[in-house]
Each structure stands twice: as C-alpha cells, then as structure tokens.
C-alpha cells in the first residue's frame, strides 16, 4: 500500500500545546502545556465537565465563540492555532463512528483521501485499507448495515487515509462493548505508533489511558474552579 506508507514517512513532527488556556466568561476552565512526540499518545483524564472536550475542540479549530482561548498549538515549529479546521490536518475520532450515512463504506474512505485523478489507484488503496481492517469486500455496503466494531474500524481507517499530521481522540472507545473495546484500543494505538503520529486522547476511563501507555494528564476541578494539569508520569523529564 504505497500511499499509506507514504503517510507514515512524512509525519514526524510533535504536537505541541504551548501555554494553552481556555476560559468561559472570565472563568478559567482548563489549561495545558504539553509536547506530544510522534508515535506517542498523551491521555487527558478527568471527570466530565472539566473541559476535556473543549480542549480538543480548540486544538481541532471549532471552539464555540462563547469560549476565550489563549496560547498556541503547533505541529513542530508550525503554528496551527489560526488555521481553519480544514487546513490543520488533525485526524479526529469521536465516541460515535460518524460514518456519513449517505455514502457507502468505500465512499466514506474516499471522502477523506487527498484528491487524485487516478481512480484505479484510489480504488486499490481503499481495497487494501479494507482488507487491512478485516472488512474485505465491504466497500459497497451501506454503513448502517455494519456492526458497531466494524464501523469503528472504518472510521479509524477513514481518518488514517486522510494522512493526518496528528490524532485527536475524544473518548473513542466509550460506546463499544467490553470485548470490542480492548480490541479497538490495540488497533488504534498500534496504528498511531506505526504511522508515527502524535496523539491526544481525552477519556474518563483509566483503562483507556493505561492501554495508551503514554503520559497521563489529570484535569481536576480545583476549589477556585480553575483546572490544573499535572503530569502523573515521569515521561516529561525524559525530554
């Protein structure tokens, strides 16, 4: 699969949160400074409502205007904070697979691929990707006919085929049942390492963070209402 390897080759830049801090109507919500190296998954944990998803929305570029954010998000030395979402090239995975219901499985995969005139080549990449996740021959299927696990795998593949520079994961395993969850964790984290992508995982499930095997940042609501981030592991010192 030529195109896939190509992706793995280009992205070796870390994802950096430089003094990022988000507030809502003067009330500070969450702040984070972190450097995520290629192939590393940093997990952000905390109870619901502390602003984990807000942090992710800021990184992805669709923070609601009600919030006020300062700080910089960078890929290597390139600042992406002022770019629109579409130019940031960050791959997103949500709780739901969010496969476009009006497109076939193959259509969903093709949707995110960079444009190219070689239709047959695109076709080959899609077929290869499908067999890669054990869904050979599923290309023409309606996404609504897939099982939850199958949908999750297609969603992952759709993101990877778009050649992202980094990954943002918003509780991607929380809606899967227990047996599938372990399987999907291995698949997702395995691919992230294989492609050498920096990844930020937002979760409230400690097992997710442990499976990610990277640094864990705990967000907790302090008495002032401000959330502070603390490195729980010693990985930060390594740099």
């Amino acid at each position, binding site marked *: 699969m030529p195109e896939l390897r190509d992706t793995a080759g280009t992205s070796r830049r870390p994802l950096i949160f430089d003094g990022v801090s988000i507030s809502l109507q003067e009330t500070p919500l969450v702040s984070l400074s972190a450097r995520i190296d290629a192939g590393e998954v940093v997990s952000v944990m905390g109870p619901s409502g502390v602003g984990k998803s807000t942090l992710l929305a800021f990184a*992805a*570029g*669709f923070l*609601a*205007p009600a919030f006020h954010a300062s700080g910089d998000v960078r890929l290597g030395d390139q600042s992406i904070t002022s*770019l*629109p*979402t*579409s*130019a*940031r*090239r*960050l*791959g*997103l995975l*949500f709780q*739901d697979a*969010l496969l*476009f*219901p*009006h497109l*076939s499985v193959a259509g969903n995969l093709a*949707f*995110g691929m*960079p444009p190219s005139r070689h239709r047959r080549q695109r076709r080959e990449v899609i077929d290869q990707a499908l067999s890669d996740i054990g869904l050979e021959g599923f290309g023409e299927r*309606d*996404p*609504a*006919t897939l099982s939850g696990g199958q949908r999750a795998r297609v969603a992952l593949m*759709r*993101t990877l085929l*778009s050649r*992202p520079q980094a990954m*943002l994961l918003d509780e991607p395993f929380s809606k899967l049942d227990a047996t599938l969850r372990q399987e999907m964790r291995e698949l997702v984290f395995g691919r992230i390492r294989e492609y050498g992508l920096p990844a930020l995982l937002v979760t409230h499930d400690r097992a997710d963070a442990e499976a990610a095997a990277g640094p864990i940042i705990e967000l907790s609501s302090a008495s002032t209402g401000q959330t502070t981030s603390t490195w729980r592991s010693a990985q930060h010192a390594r740099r």
Partner: protein
Amino acid sequence: MARVDQRILAADSWFVRLTRWAPLLTVLLLVVPVMVGVAGVTAPAFGWLPALGGESLSLAPWVALWHTPGLGEMITMSLSTGLISTAVALVIVILFLGAFADSAAFVWLKRLLSPLLAVPHAAAAIGLAFLLAPSGLAMRLVSPGLSGQKVPPDYLFPGDPHGIALIAGLVVKEVPFLLLMSLAALPQCQAHHRRHLALSLGYSPVTAFLKGVLPSLYPLIRLPVYAVIAFASSNVDVAMILGPSTPPPLAVSVVRWLGDPDLSMRFMASAAALTQLAVTLMALGIWWCIEHAIRLLATPCLTDGQRHLGQRLGVVLGGGLTWLSAGLLCASLLGLVLWSLAAYWPFPASWPTPLTLANWRAALPGLLPAAGTTLALAVAATLLSTILVVGCLESESLHQRSMGKGATLVLYLPLLVPPVAFLYGLVQLQAQLFLMPGFVLVVVGHSLFVLPYVFLSLAESYRRLDPRWSQVAASLGKSHASIFLRVRLPLLLAPMATAMAVGLAVSIGQYLPTLLLGAGRLTTLTTEAVSLASGGDRRLTAIYALAQLALPAIGFALAIGLPRLLHRRRRALLT
C-alpha cells in the same frame, strides 16, 4: 502542503462571504417592501398622489371613506371573522392535542397534515362552497330521502350575512397550520415528560395537557397564532369566495375600490387600506387583551388540584371538530372531482351521470398556460427563498451564533401586516421606484410569503443536525463549501425537499400579490379559480380549483419520493 492550504482558504472565503450576505439580504427582502408599501399607501390616504393630481395634503379621502355606506359592518365583519375563526381553530387544536396525544388517531392525523396544509386556501374555499351550498353535495346526499327536498332549499351559503361560511372556510385551513406549528413546538417544552408526570399524579389526559403543557406551549406558538389572526382578518381570496357580499369584509372592498375605473377612488382606497392595517392591529390588540385576561383568570386554576377539568369536553369537541374539519376538507375535494367530471347533474341526484372528461378537454387550452405561469412563479420564488434561508441557516451554523428575537419578528413581518395594505402601496410607488409590474416583481412579492414558511419548515432540522458531521469532514480537509455540498446538503435532503414543497404550495396559493404586482397581466391557476368562483360555471371552477390543488400535491409527492429514491440503499436516511 502550503498550496493546498491556500486553496482551501480561498474556497472557504467565497462561501463564507456568501453566507454572510444572506441574513442581510433576507432582512432587506422582508422588511423593505413592507415598509415602503405602507409608506406608499399612507401618502395617497392623505391626498398626496401627484400622478393623479393630488398635490396637497387633505383629509378628504378619510371623509369619503367615513361616508361610505356599510363601513362599520365591513370592519365588524373583518374583526369578527378574524377573531372567531382563530379562536375556534386554536380551541380545536388545543383540545385535540390534549385528548389524543400519543394515540393512534394522532399518528394518523400527523400523516394527513402535510397534504392538508398543501391545499391552497382558494381551492379549499371553493370546495367548501360547493359542498355546503343549497345544491351542494351534502344536501344532495340527504335529499330527497332525509330532508324531503326536491328542489334546493332556500338558505344563503356561501355568503351568509353573518360570515359563518367564511369562518368555516378559515377554520378548516387554520387547524392544520396551527396543529403543525404546535407539533414542532411540543418537544421544546418537554411535553411528553410533563404529560406523563401529570398523568401519574392522577390527572386526566386533557387536564394534564391544559395545566401541565399548554402554559409553556402557548408562548411558543404565539407568533403563528398572531399570523393566523392577521391573515384571517385581512384575507381577500377566501372572503371573495365564501364571505358575504353586501357588504363584504373590509379587505375585499379595498381591492374592489382599487380596481375601480374611477381613478379618484384610489385616494379613498388608500385610506381604506390603512384602515385595514388598523383593523388587523385592533384584532391583534383584542386578542392580546383576551389572552392576558385568560392568563390572569386561569392561573389560580392551575394549582387548584382539580384533575378532570374539561376531560369529556376535550375528547368530544377536540376529537369531533378536528375530524370534522379534516372530513369537510376531504369531502370538499371529492365534490370538486365530481363536479369536474359531471356532464349533467340535476339536484337531488348525489352522483353525476354520466361521468365525462369533456369538461377537462374543453378547459385544457386555458388551463395549461395558467399552470405554466403558476409553476414558473412558484419555482422562482421557492428557489430564491430557499437559497436565502439556507444561506441564513448556514451562516448561523458557521458562526455558531443563533438568531435573536428580532430576527424571528422580521420573519413574521409580512405575515402580520395585511398584504392589502402594503402591496397596494408598492403598486402605488411602482412608477417612482422604476419597478416594472410583471414576472420579477410578482416573484419578489410571492417570496415575501414563501420565505417565512420555508424558514419555519427548515430551521428545526437544520439546527438539529449534529455539528460533528461538519467537524469530521473539516478535519478530513474539506472546505466549508465542500462540507455544505457533500455532507450537509445530502444529509438534509429530505427536510430541504419538504421545505421547498411548502414553498411551492405557498406560492401557488397566492392571489393578491399576483393580482396587484402583476398589474393583472399574469394569469395563474389561483387568480383564475378565484375569479371563476364568483361566476356560475361550477365545472370549470372545479377544474381550476383541482389544478390549483394538484400542483402542490405533486410537489409534496416529489418531496417525499425523491429523497427515498436517491437514498434507497442508505438505511440510516430512510426514516
């Protein structure tokens, strides 16, 4: 990579710019004609109309209006038919919702709602007139067996002096509209949970609805109710077909005076048009007072613990009257079909023999061009409105900002100001504003009424669309324009098609804008049907009414069928 980014940014910028203009254009389209129109009718009302030699301000038009015989009756007729029909329709809707929420009857009526709404006012009025007239289908069914009548009995319908026929015609068309608006508002006030809670506390269903849901529902449907009052107190086409003629409601007289060959009548007609505006405002004011009185009087009842208030009344009246109005509408349509196919149909016979297509064949040469004009106007007005509405909603979602209360009021402006008042003002100013009467102006005139309905019918689905679809697509590198075309549009195809069908139906039903802004040169099915209705040819009238009805029906059929066909292999979109 830098080049790709530039391309995305460029594609974004034109789309974002386009959506930024949409709200402004929409506000201008809805506000300017109404304001200019009202101004254009105010000047001649005070004697100022240089084109006709009125170059000094005077109160002469008002004096002339004051001395018009029957003015008081006209105003009373407008006020009473407007208020009574709205009240009756609202009571029916409230009692029906209370008595039958979550029942099988409810599901059935919900399905009937869109087709019933699509029936143009004029067609419904003509159908009702043919059904209930002395020689109408209803009387034929009971004659001579039950009624003993061998010749049509002697009663005045339509056109009875108390306006009962007019009220009935308005109610039949208002019930589906208010029901639809209520159904859209119910989820917003957690009607389901509240009802269940009240039922568990031992309340009867109707009482549970009246005390637990209605107090929050009413504020949500207040504007639609006001729009209904404004329409009912100032409409022209239904009143021309069903209303009394000596004297008619004020709006009908205004149109007559406007069309008077004696041009000096225009001054008085302008004064009368302004009076119509005042009458509608007065109707709204009276309603507002009644509304507040009811709230004051009913507030203590909400907590008095009485659990079975109005239960039986609700089931009997709410159920009976809803089905009666739906039934009347359906029977009217059946009557129209029979009349259009009747060769010879003498009085007590309840079935015309023989049935023939000759009427249709004879009507076709006139029918086709009228249908063509109707369709062209409707398609143009609907496209213009849909583009602006989608632009507004898209800009709302792009900037993640919802519209304020003022914007909602702007949407309702053309529905609250009597058309006869501002449309005539526009006609008056055509020369000064270099507006050529004709197709384009009529399209703009139709859009004033089409746009609010397209907006009301699309906004809910548009705003409910999961924002993550766009977020996923953007993260996959798609520009705003591309996300709109490749994700949002396909996902919203069904509601978009329905909104456009609603738009077509509204435009097809327009009478006054076509007549006034087209300077009488554009013949549509509606203008033909209304003018035929006052003549004696029931067969031809029925044919035009049916054709007027068929176009929106085809629109709705397409709106339901096309998305299903296009998405036939996508289960998640077939709901």
